[in-house]
């Protein structure tokens, strides 16, 4: 039980966060809430990648003095890759908000059912 809590519990928690995000996209009618759920999903994926690079007893990947033992530092590769993912999520949110403003100006509201009803008139 102890090795489950320190070994695998965090994978379950990250999976639960990811599934909350997917449920938020599928089950909401408001377009703004769908956008926020997509952000939650992206954060869950980023945290999952960072967990994969963790080492027991390792510290930040910044070299202290001239000590280059591999087991003393955590893996720097997932951190560098996830910087790209964070910035891509910022860009996607910016473009999505601009599109949302145009939809609101054209159709009058941002509920999905009302937009479909207005498009079919």
């Amino acid at each position, binding site marked *: 039980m102890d*090795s489950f809590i*320190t*070994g*695998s519990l*965090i*994978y*379950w928690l990250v*999976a*639960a966060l*990811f*599934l909350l995000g*997917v*449920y938020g996209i*599928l*089950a909401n009618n408001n377009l703004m809430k769908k956008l926020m759920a997509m952000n939650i999903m992206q954060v869950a994926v980023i945290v999952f990648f960072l*967990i*994969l*690079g*963790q*080492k*027991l007893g*390792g510290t930040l*990947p*910044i*070299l202290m003095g*001239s000590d*280059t033992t*591999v*087991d003393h*530092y955590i*893996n*720097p*590769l*997932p*951190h*560098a890759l996830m*910087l*790209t993912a964070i*910035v*891509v999520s*910022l*860009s*996607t949110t*910016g*473009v999505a*908000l*601009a*599109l949302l*403003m*145009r939809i609101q*100006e054209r159709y009058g509201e941002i509920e999905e059912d009302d937009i479909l009803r207005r498009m079919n008139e």
Partner: protein
Amino acid sequence: MKKVSALLMIVLAFMFFYTASSLPQVGDVNSPASQHVSPRYIEKGKKETGSPNLVTAVLADYRGYDTLGETTVIFVAGIATVMILRGKRKGED
């Protein structure tokens, strides 16, 4: 729609929790993610790039081409946002 998606979430949850048992333990020093190219970055990073910060060394020296592509992505997203909202300024003529 809400009931169907809730059922789908439960099915996906079972799939995730079943495969989470075959992922490596958190903190394992012999996990496959830290085996092939990452020890080389840690051992030779300071000597080849001259910067003790390994994340910046990987991001700007070993994988500098990917960072150029990412900067282009940010720039294009900025252009796209300004272009979408430009018609709103001058009116819809």
